[in-house]
């Protein structure tokens, strides 16, 4: 399945793109996605562990199972306000 991922702020800057997609096996989890991101974008390796992953606009744990239609975002530590 193809999972589309949005990147923001420092994650977008380090990866050099605001959005990308990954080909993952059916049943892949957020943990699997994290591994795929680091493999494709080594510039995110030291940064991604500090980021949360959002699925359908809510924070998702690493064991969350992904599906193709979900909206996925890489959320660096937030600093609004």
């Amino acid at each position, binding site marked *: 399945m193809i999972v589309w991922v949005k990147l923001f702020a420092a994650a977008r800057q380090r990866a050099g793109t605001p959005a990308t997609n990954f080909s993952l096996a059916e049943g892949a989890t957020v943990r699997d996605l994290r591994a795929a991101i680091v493999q494709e974008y080594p510039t995110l390796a030291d940064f991604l562990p500090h980021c949360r992953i959002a699925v359908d606009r809510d924070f998702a744990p690493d064991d969350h199972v992904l599906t193709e239609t979900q909206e996925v975002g890489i959320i660096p530590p937030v600093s*609004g306000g």
Partner: protein
Amino acid sequence: MIQLVHEPIDTQAILAAAAHPHAGAVVLFLGVTRQLTAGRETESLDYECYPEMAICKLRELEEQARAKWPLLHCVVVHRLGHLEISEASIAIAVSSPHRRAAFEAGQWLIDTIKEVVPIWKQENWQDGSREWVHPGTGLPKAT
């Protein structure tokens, strides 16, 4: 009322939105761009966000605040884009029959927004360098 805006925040409009005949207290909090951080001088700030999720999260927080305190109105406006020193990046106005609830809700809202709402701030330092702010993480600096 929840809004993300790109223009300067109109605080009078926010206070008008929080006004209510049963209100005994209206608390307005403004987060403003600070010139000095740990001795370093900021020239300006840039904010970006994940708008769809930021709106969802802000609505959730409004709902939670209304469940915790007897609020009459809850207004949160966050500004995005480029901000100069002393400009407001966020305005929170809450009204309630009595002051304690308004003070508590306002403080809880700004503290929680800073933890869970996907909005990011980049410092443009006076020395020409730029840096994403990642509070409390000890993260390596973005280039």
